[in-house]
């Protein structure tokens, strides 16, 4: 508990300062955009309606989708920029987050501002014209000052929204307090999840109160209050800016990871091997599944681990299912040709969908393969993760084996395992490298008809790092060196409910267990990975 808390506190300056800078920049930009829009909309009813409608529409787009949508747009702009001017800009991280949050911040400011200005006493406006103010003087001396308290109330709403939503910038590669939440959820570290939530709430409340101070100062005509609030806010932003940015600048290599434990562990393993050669490394974790490959192809990360089946369907958009070897060979050629991405080789294990049962149940029914399962399936209930029943794997399983269950239920992965152990379901869709398979002694059913495509974990290199000797030295020994049982155990160390390890600790254990340390003994650099079979036995004991 204490260890988890202290590990959370260690990264707080980095996460918090990034979160503050992102939110402050978005709010400032939002304010900068909404005030001219407000001024334009105050006179023209024809403009007012579409402006408000557009702002409301943006507000209804789910935040995470809005954040995600900016990435491909920016990527396109960046490559266009590169082609025209010779320099691109990073399409991942700060920029898409900034743009999405800015759009979010506009509506409350705009709506409150327009409401305030439209509800100004007409007598006051008539008086303003009557005493000889020009349109501009009337705006600056009468309308804006009178609308200011309400405008500030809008800014407060906006600030709370933006600070809350900024946690969702994590999957597009921007460090924020959301890193606590995303990482914590994946490795079931609830201390981190709660810590991230609490920090976000505290930041939002503090900002809201400082803005309230400014609002009060404006409403009560006490400028010193408003200035104090503004000074404290600026001080906070300046302090965030002064925190040395751990994650930018001097890193010579960037290692990417998607948003689950295995990816954190492998990224940590890879980084430590680069660091061991004396180079600075930055890890960019929690990348959304869609972004990781694009970021690699764009050179924003140098290397990461992906899975053949995913690359086959999501990147090459193939629907045919060749065997494991042909898929690997075709991927190597196609990724190189289309994206310049190098597929260095498979790590030696798969992270594929498998069907798993409680050992007692499997023995009682005499079921060890999916073929055998098909006979008894009509009396059983299948539990799947949230996306499984919409995936091609499920379609192919049904087609090839004629599977029909009594019922099908979807769960968040953690609860799916609990449902299996508490007999709510009889069969679940697990991932072959999942640590809980070994922990719960689950029986993984064989797939003799090869209905489920192979998901070999493979190391990828970005185009410009393709022949980088440092990366090659760090990564080549990993090829074929990580058997499924070691990966499962490392995953379990991070995810188990008690005696948890950090991904970095698990990576160190994995390196030792796979004999990757010092000893120049490559397990089998050219060996083709074997189809994984669950075998928790013969595993080196954990530290």
């Amino acid at each position, binding site marked *: 508990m204490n260890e988890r808390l202290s590990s959370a506190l260690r990264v707080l300056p980095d996460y918090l300062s990034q979160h503050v800078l992102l939110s402050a920049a978005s709010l400032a930009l939002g304010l900068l955009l909404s005030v001219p829009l407000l001024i334009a909309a105050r006179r023209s009813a024809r403009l007012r309606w579409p402006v408000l409608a557009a702002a409301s529409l943006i507000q209804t787009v789910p935040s995470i989708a809005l954040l995600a949508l900016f990435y491909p747009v920016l990527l396109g702009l960046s490559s266009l920029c590169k082609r025209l001017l010779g320099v691109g800009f990073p399409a991942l991280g700060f920029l898409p987050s900034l743009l999405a949050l800015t759009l979010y911040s506009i509506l409350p400011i705009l709506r409150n501002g327009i409401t305030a200005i439209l509800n100004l*006493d*007409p*007598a*006051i*406006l*008539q*008086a*303003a*014209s*009557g*005493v*000889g*103010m*020009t349109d501009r*003087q009337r705006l600056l*001396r*009468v309308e804006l*000052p*009178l609308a200011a308290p309400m405008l500030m109330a809008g800014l407060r709403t906006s600030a709370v929204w933006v600070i809350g939503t900024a946690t969702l910038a994590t999957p597009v590669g921007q460090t924020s307090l959301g890193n606590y939440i995303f990482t914590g959820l994946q490795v079931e570290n609830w201390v981190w999840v709660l810590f991230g939530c609490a920090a976000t709430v505290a930041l939002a409340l503090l900002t809201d109160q400082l803005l309230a101070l400014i609002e009060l100062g404006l409403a009560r*005509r006490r400028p010193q209050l408003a200035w104090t609030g503004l000074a404290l806010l600026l001080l906070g932003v300046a302090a965030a800016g002064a925190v040395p940015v751990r994650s930018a600048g001097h890193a010579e290599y960037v290692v990417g990871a998607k948003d689950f434990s295995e990816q954190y562990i492998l990224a940590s393993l890879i980084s430590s091997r680069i660091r061991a050669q004396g180079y600075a490394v930055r890890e960019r974790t929690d990348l959304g599944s869609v972004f990781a490959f694009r970021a690699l192809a764009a050179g924003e990360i140098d290397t990461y681990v992906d899975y053949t089946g995913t690359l086959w369907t999501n990147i090459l958009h193939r629907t045919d299912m060749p065997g494991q070897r042909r898929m690997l060979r075709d991927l190597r050629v196609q990724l190189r040709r289309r994206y310049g991405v190098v597929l260095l080789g498979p790590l030696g294990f798969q992270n594929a969908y498998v069907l798993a049962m409680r050992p007692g149940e499997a023995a009682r029914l005499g079921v060890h393969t999916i073929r055998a399962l098909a006979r008894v399936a009509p009396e059983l209930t299948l539990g799947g993760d949230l996306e499984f029943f919409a995936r091609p794997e499920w379609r192919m399983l049904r087609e090839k084996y004629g599977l029909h269950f009594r019922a099908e239920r979807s769960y968040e992965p953690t609860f799916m395992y609990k449902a299996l152990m508490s007999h709510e379901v009889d069969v679940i869709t697990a991932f072959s490298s999942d640590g809980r398979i070994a922990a719960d002694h689950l029986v993984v059913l064989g797939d003799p008809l090869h209905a489920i495509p192979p998901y070999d974990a493979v190391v990828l290199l970005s185009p410009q790092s393709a022949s980088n000797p440092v990366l090659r030295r760090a990564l080549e020994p990993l090829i074929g060196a990580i058997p499924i049982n070691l990966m499962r155990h490392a995953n379990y160390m991070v995810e188990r409910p008690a005696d948890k390890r950090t991904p970095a600790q698990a990576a160190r254990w994995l390196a030792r267990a796979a004999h990757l340390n010092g000893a120049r003994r490559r397990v089998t650099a050219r060996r083709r990975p074997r189809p994984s079979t669950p075998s928790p036995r013969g595993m080196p004991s954990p530290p």
Partner: protein
Amino acid sequence: MIAVENVSKSFDGGGSFAIRGVNLRVPARTFVAIVGDSGSGKTTLLKTINRLIEPNEGEVLIDGEPVCTVAPHALRRRIGYVFQGIGLFPHMSIAENIGITPRLIGWPEPQVRARIEELIELVALPRAYLTRLPAELSGGQRQRVGIARALAARPYIMLMDEPFGALDPLTRDALGTEYRRLHERMRLTTLMVTHDILEAVLLADRIVVMRAGAIVADGEPHELLSGHSDPEVRTLMDMPRRQAERVRALVEERGGE
């Protein structure tokens, strides 16, 4: 001298007219009251003078200069404007409200401050009020500030749109009488819209009666009081006299007991 020449204004593109073909000449230092029912066009007429309303036809001249050739804000800084809504700026102190037009024009700051102090005395308010906000004042006090603000930049024309309409009768009477004295003392030209005939009779040098967007009577109070060819004007002008007679009758009845 204000000259309104053949001015028409329609708010619905010519379907109906708020005022139509109105002609009016107001010599300098006159106090003119414009009376009439609501919707007769008196406010529209007043607002064409400081260009709060632009006429569709005709023009308004001040000392021979067409007002449409002067920028509206510049024109309005030369003309005092007081209306029923008062429209004090709620976020400015009384002093800031009074000083607004001189500051817009760019008077030197000491001169503005001296003028503010002079005006607060002129409208008979304590100096201590200068630092207060409008919300802290009563309706009558606020309208005194409204008048002070209109007079601040030393205009010689005052346009007043039912200035005392929302005040209680006592305040109304006092403020009306005081304003008439200011009108004399500062040699103003005043156009005041009112629906109170008695007020018009007691304050104005000349009364203009409007009906359905046109002027139907125009004369000195005593002329109009002593009869007019138009029966409606006659009824209207008879009202103060009838009221006065009723009041006298009541008093005498009591006194006879």
